[in-house]
């Protein structure tokens, strides 16, 4: 093993570097979103948001992070020590793993029915979307055992709610993803982004709505933040978590916000590919479109995530049974309708080619 590492040390250095870079990126993104949310919320409410810490409050997330990391540790008397300790990690780790699957800075063109993927930062997994769906749903296990192990009734209620919510909304969300996979003919996220002749938000508008609503429920944003429910369950599943443990939950939440934005970007907004009419911005460096596609990818993801914040903050919260009704009685039938609609498109070749650069063998 060690010999292998020594032989390929450059490769390992690069991988480690990329991993550290990704970790920093995740951290920066999560920190930044806390500031973005507070600023945006402030502007929506005719306030200023953080202003005093650094210029325009830009250092606010750093101050928050320093404070939270320096906070004393707490072990509630009734807590189950083992699970209480590890649940934040179980909740956060999937968020980080998911991040590595997201095709930031990958550029795909379909030439003669073959997808040519040039990627710099992406795992390039051929079942990327399946993996993301699978791994994302592990987080809720962390929330569930975190809420249970705290030994607090409020957190228990929040945890149980979150589990029910996650399981229900997984279904319409996955079916919405399935429709995209049917359209694109691939599960590789880079290829899904690349084959979109027309952004899938147009042919798959219903799928887009279903996906965004289900994602909102999965990341516990406000109309569906029952697991946290500030005004009813105090702070829900994280009511007993302090300091660094809380940071993990906090990070997971905001990372998922970005991941949701990124998924919407890949699935519906053509990933890192710029809008056609802005073709002149599509600059090539060292033979790849890495920089331009990274720029477009992050810009689109941020825009979607900010849109989610904006959307969610003017809404009241729904109730648990209404939430379940929404998933099983509204979204699930709609998504099944969407599957049939997509099948009709896919089977109708000329119509399909109107939206998609078809891959060979299809």
């Amino acid at each position, binding site marked *: 093993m060690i010999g292998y590492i020594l032989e390929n040390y450059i490769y390992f250095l690069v991988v480690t570097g990329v991993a550290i870079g990704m970790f920093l990126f995740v951290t920066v993104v999560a920190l930044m979103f806390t500031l973005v949310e507070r600023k945006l*919320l402030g502007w*929506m*409410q*005719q*306030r200023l948001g953080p202003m005093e810490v650094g210029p325009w409050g830009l250092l606010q997330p750093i101050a928050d992070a320093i404070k939270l990391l320096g906070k004393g540790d707490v072990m509630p008397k009734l807590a189950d020590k083992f699970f209480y300790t590890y649940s934040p990690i179980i909740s956060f780790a999937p968020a980080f793993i998911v991040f590595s699957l997201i095709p930031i800075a990958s550029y795909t063109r379909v030439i003669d029915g073959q997808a040519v993927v040039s990627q710099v930062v992406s795992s390039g997994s051929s079942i990327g979307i399946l993996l993301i769906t699978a791994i994302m749903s592990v987080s809720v296990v962390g929330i569930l055992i975190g809420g249970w192990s705290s030994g607090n*009734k*409020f957190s228990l*209620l929040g945890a149980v709610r979150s589990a029910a919510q996650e399981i229900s909304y997984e279904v319409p969300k996955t079916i919405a993803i399935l429709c995209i996979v049917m359209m694109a003919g691939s599960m590789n996220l880079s290829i899904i982004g690349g084959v979109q002749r027309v952004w899938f938000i147009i042919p798959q508008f219903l799928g887009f709505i279903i996906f965004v609503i289900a994602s909102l429920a999965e990341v516990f944003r*406000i*109309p569906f*933040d*029952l697991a946290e*429910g*500030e*005004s*009813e*369950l*105090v702070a829900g599943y994280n009511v007993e978590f302090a300091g660094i443990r809380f940071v993990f939950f906090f990070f997971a939440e905001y990372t998922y916000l970005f991941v949701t934005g990124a998924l919407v970007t890949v699935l519906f907004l053509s990933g890192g590919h710029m809008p056609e009419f802005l073709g002149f911005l599509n600059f090539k460096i060292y033979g790849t479109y890495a920089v331009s596609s990274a720029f477009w990818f992050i810009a689109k993801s941020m825009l979607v995530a900010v849109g989610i914040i904006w959307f969610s*903050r*003017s*809404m*009241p*919260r*729904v*109730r*648990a*049974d*209404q939430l379940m009704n929404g998933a099983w009685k509204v979204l699930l039938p709609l998504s099944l309708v969407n599957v049939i609609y997509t099948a009709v498109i896919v089977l109708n070749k000329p119509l399909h080619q109107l939206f998609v650069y078809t891959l060979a063998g299809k």
Partner: protein
Amino acid sequence: MSEQTICTDTIKLNIGPHHPATHGVFRLETELDGEVVVNSRPILGYLHRGIEKIAENLTYNQIIPYFDRLDYLSGFLNEYPFVSAVERLMGIEVPKKAQYLRVLMMELNRIAAHLVNIGAQGLDLASMTSMVYCMREREYLLELFVAVSGSRMTFNWMRVGGVKSDLPEGFLSRVDRFIHYLKDRMPEYASLMQDNEIFQARTKGIGILRPDHALELGCSGPLLRGSGVARDIRMDEPYEVYDELEFKVITHDECDSFARYMVRYDEISQSIRIIEQILSKIPDGDIMAKVPKVIKPPEGDIYSRVEAPIGELGVYLSSDGKNKPHRMKIRAPSFSNIRAVPDMIKGLQVPDVIATFASVAPTMGEADR
């Protein structure tokens, strides 16, 4: 298969005394089956300050500030029943101008209190923006209160026989401007709250209180009017100059949280209507009647009441002819209204408990005294 049923235990959940949605320090001991409330028991007294006992050792004018601290959202409305009780006991005729000023400030104060209550109803359903918007308008109102009384919340402005000070110069035009501003803002609240489908889904049909039950429990205010009982002391037993003013008693028949919200929302418009009439009607004259230096009401018991934002706020005053009251009792609307909460929330889920409690909107300072 044998006849075996799964037995699940209920859990006891304490909502409060420190909880973001209890409007102060109030504890609701609930017994939950899953998330459904099986049983509940309100526990009061976390803000019991013994105002009634303190008042027995103070002279009449010294008591007035304590009333500001009862229902701290509506200080002017709290001062009124006490001063009017003393006035009626002593047979003092308050000058017309002072009466108009009192009504003006009371109605402005009613708007301020209702703004907080409807905003808090939004906040308890997690719509923070609605609360922020309501408090933004309240800030302008507090500025008006400061101009009149010098204080933002605890005014100490009414006196036995009149009011402490006249309105400052240009005050009426400021009120006029504020009213126009508020009228423009009302649709904003509507779009954030009652027109929002989630808000409707969360409040309609939730927390039903039947009118006969409400009367049996002695409820009052928006809680009663939301159940379709048209009872408003301003109309039924007009005090000060309310008989010279035109307004409508708002009732909604749905008996649910949404109806109570709508009563408050519509009452803001009625208060605006009253204020508009007052602005054109304020006469010239004194603001204080002739009152002896030392207030010594004759012996006797008296009860005076006011339609406060929460309900009927009354003061029972028993004088023994000395300069301190023999016994003073405050009839607190929140206290009676809270009695209705356990009946309203039975069978509801925890989030609905919060929504219902927000629609009752008690102020604990007044319930506990």
